[in-house]
């Protein structure tokens, strides 16, 4: 929550200049432009995780449910109703929110590992639905669809055009996120993360705040998933799977949960790393797994979080939920509600 200062603004400005120039820079670095698009998409997805993990203190291992719902939401609406580009994104976003509304009430009663466990389990429901309801979703094979033209203009966004559309969405999400975490709501979430009992004794019904945070997160996740669907013009069950959740959580932690640009840093390393390694090594899941291990043991605050710690006057940045009493199964004043 600290002001980022002049150097923070400078760094942000440089970052956006680089992102704007990416279609020109990428070929020189032997990167496909789609990789740059993926970086932005997954940065959005990781920001959704960051809102919950870094700012609210709950672990959304199961977020891929919302990501995948976004992709299927966009794909199904394009396939069945021939909607336009923006509409398909809106529908994908809403699909994520609907998922959160369905499973949220089950998750809210618990915190800590119990929340995580419930979210892993409930998140997987959507995977099996997509996997089994073959006549709607195409089952295991997934579903192909085309990227629809932009409403009104009839323009088909391709390559750099599509990249800039995603960059615009990314920018909007970053600005929205930045405003949100500086708002009273954002401050309240951080307070809940640090000490939920105290927050309740300030008159805050914390369940409602966590539920709203979950819905906002699911909306962002759904939007990211819809963008991804439009990017690859394909939706398949593994997008909803917990392995996908793990990847997105990893990006968040890798970059630094609780920082605005941590998810982007994590997505850059993950997506580009995956691209290089998976073409070079058939067994690339081993370095990926090793990355999880190294990140957890070596950089618990993430790369950006660790780097920010090194700046003068910015010590004591927190890692997610530091030393929570994981066993606290339920909020105390509910403990005996029976």
């Amino acid at each position, binding site marked *: 929550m600290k002001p980022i200062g002049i150097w923070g603004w400078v760094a942000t400005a440089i970052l956006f200049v680089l992102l704007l120039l990416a279609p020109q820079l990428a070929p020189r670095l032997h990167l496909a432009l789609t990789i740059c698009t993926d970086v932005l998409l997954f940065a959005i997805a990781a920001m959704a995780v960051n809102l919950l993990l870094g700012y609210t203190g709950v672990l959304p291992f199961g977020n891929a449910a919302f990501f995948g719902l976004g992709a299927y939401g966009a794909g199904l609406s394009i396939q069945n109703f021939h909607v336009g580009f923006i509409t398909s994104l809106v529908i994908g976003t809403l699909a994520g929110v609907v998922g959160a509304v369905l499973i949220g009430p089950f998750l809210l009663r618990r915190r800590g590992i119990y929340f995580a466990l419930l979210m892993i389990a409930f998140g997987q429901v959507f995977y099996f639905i997509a996997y089994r309801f073959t006549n709607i979703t195409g089952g295991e094979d997934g579903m192909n669809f085309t990227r629809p033209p932009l409403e009104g203009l009839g323009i088909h966004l391709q390559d750099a055009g599509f990249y800039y559309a995603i960059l615009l969405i990314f920018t909007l999400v970053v600005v929205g996120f930045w405003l949100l975490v500086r708002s009273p709501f954002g401050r309240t979430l951080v307070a809940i993360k640090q000490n939920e009992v105290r927050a309740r004794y300030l008159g805050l019904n914390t369940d409602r705040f966590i539920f709203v945070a979950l819905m906002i997160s699911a909306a962002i996740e759904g939007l990211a998933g819809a963008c991804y669907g439009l990017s690859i013009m394909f939706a398949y069950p593994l997008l909803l799977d917990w392995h996908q959740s793990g990847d997105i959580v990893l990006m968040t932690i890798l970059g630094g949960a609780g920082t605005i640009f941590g998810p982007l840093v994590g997505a850059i390393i993950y997506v580009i790393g995956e691209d290089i390694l998976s073409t070079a090594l058939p067994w690339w899941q*081993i370095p990926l797994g090793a990355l999880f291990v190294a990140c957890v043991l070596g950089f618990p605050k993430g790369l950006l979080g660790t780097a920010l710690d090194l700046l003068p006057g910015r010590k004591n940045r927190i890692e997610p939920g530091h030393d929570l009493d994981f066993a606290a199964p339920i909020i105390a004043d509910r403990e005996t509600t029976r």
Partner: protein
Amino acid sequence: MAHIAPEIFNGLILGAFYAVVAIGLSLIMNLTGTINMAHGSFMTLAGYLAFALVGAGTNYWYALAIAPLMAVAVGILMERTMIRPLYRRDPVYSLLLTFGISLIAEEAFRLIWGPNGVPFSPPKGLGGGISLGFTVFPVYRLFIAGALVVIILALVIFLQHTRYGLRLRAAVQDREMISALGTNTQLLYMVNFGLGILIAGIAGVLAAGMLGLNPQSGNSLLMPAFVTVIVGGMGSLFGAIVGGLLIGLAISLTTLYIPAASEIAMYVIMAVVLLVRPRGLFGEEGIFG
């Protein structure tokens, strides 16, 4: 009846597998706050090790005993070197770490034993079937059922009637107290983790002969086991057993009638249970009571 009976029987066996895996997960989760995403990998590991041992000429029974112990050795090594530093930290870290390890393990199995799975047939003595008049039950499944019952009973006796088991349960209930009493908590964590892996390993070897053995076979039991923990009630031994059998039956029977809904059935059960009893069926009973 004739066609339901085998399905019920298979469902109960499947359920017993879920129960055994869930108990191990639950032990680790309750004592140390670690959601062990690599639990399934240890089942697969034990299965492959047994397969390798049998392939090298070892007797099946020795393999059934040795392979899980080898998995335990790997598990304890992992616990001591990697998970232990995370106990005082947010659960997200141990979850991510074990998830990473499961990715490594899966790829390693694929590299060593191939991506498509290997045939791991039960020993000759356990082949064939027993006729029960209306149907024929494979001997190997009867053996598995018996073995799982023995494992579960042994666990119940260990946790409820031995000094070490009681100490484990006490530690699960109150970690502060147990260290105040002078018990070596770090040792307790290690034994607890090893115990969880041991039963997962035995189940892994048994399952290999019935459900097949491939790089993901253990992981496919993990999600039903999570659901079992939730349905039975976090930390309830009895709940894990009842929950596992219930889900095994549900999956097996829906597979018979509505194959498309077989996995979804367990989520329906989970949702209904949570609506009626937010802490699971036996969550109120206390920790491993």
